């Protein structure tokens, strides 16, 4: 049997717009948070291992590169949390009106920026600026 041309996946030929931007960001931030989970356990294990190991972990997490990654994790946390709640409302059947979906999308994007910055400085202060 001759091989027919297979249909293309939607993302290969659909116009780029806010819906798929928010959607792919949800996935990307989800992956980043999965990586952040390993950092969380590293931190918990360092606390359990005693003051010296804890201090060593703080030094490691205080390096500029680690701080940049932690900032990414904090922003990802805020975005994934807000957009996740938006999706929970979608799942319950609410918010599908074009205007509503667009407004909630913008609210999530701006809210994640504001909340992310606020949480970053709050957590940094709580952790003594080290991590």
């Amino acid at each position, binding site marked *: 049997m001759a091989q027919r041309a297979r249909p293309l996946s939607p993302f290969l030929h659909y116009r780029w717009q806010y819906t798929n931007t928010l959607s792919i960001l949800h996935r990307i931030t*989800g992956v980043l948070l999965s990586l952040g989970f390993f950092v969380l356990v590293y931190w918990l294990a360092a606390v*359990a291992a005693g*003051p010296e190991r804890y201090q060593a972990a703080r030094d490691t997490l205080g390096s500029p590169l680690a701080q940049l990654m932690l900032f990414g994790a904090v922003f990802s946390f805020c975005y994934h949390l807000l957009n996740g709640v938006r999706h929970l409302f979608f799942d319950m059947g609410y918010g599908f009106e074009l205007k509503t979906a667009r407004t909630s999308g913008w609210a999530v994007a701006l809210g994640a920026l504001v909340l992310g910055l606020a949480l970053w400085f709050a957590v940094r202060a709580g952790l003594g600026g080290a991590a």
Partner: protein
Amino acid sequence: MSLRSPLRRVTGLGSAKGGAAHWYAQRVTAVALVLLGLWFAFALATLGGASHARVIDWLSTPLASALAVLLVLTAAYHALLGLQVIFEDYVADKGTRTGVLLAVKFALVVTAVIGVLAVLRIAFGVAA
């Protein structure tokens, strides 16, 4: 000829497997993580400099240890469900996909066990 009957060869094909349970578990853990995540973020922000003694004081209280264990387990499960969907979407080759999914699951489960043991060690005061 094959040992497998024609019916056996067609059942289970397509997407009608255990999708509903996966979908539902993703949402249940999402709701739990909203609460646990906000609790953990708020706790970190109010640690007042986070000296080792201060962190132990906080994390060894029964409420904080219980919530920390729940956070580790729920986050690992939610990450597992989410990463599974992503790899199923983007890794076309079935053998590679199965291998990647196994590796992801092993990594997350092992890490979750380490996290739970760390919290228990803090809770029962071995490290203090």
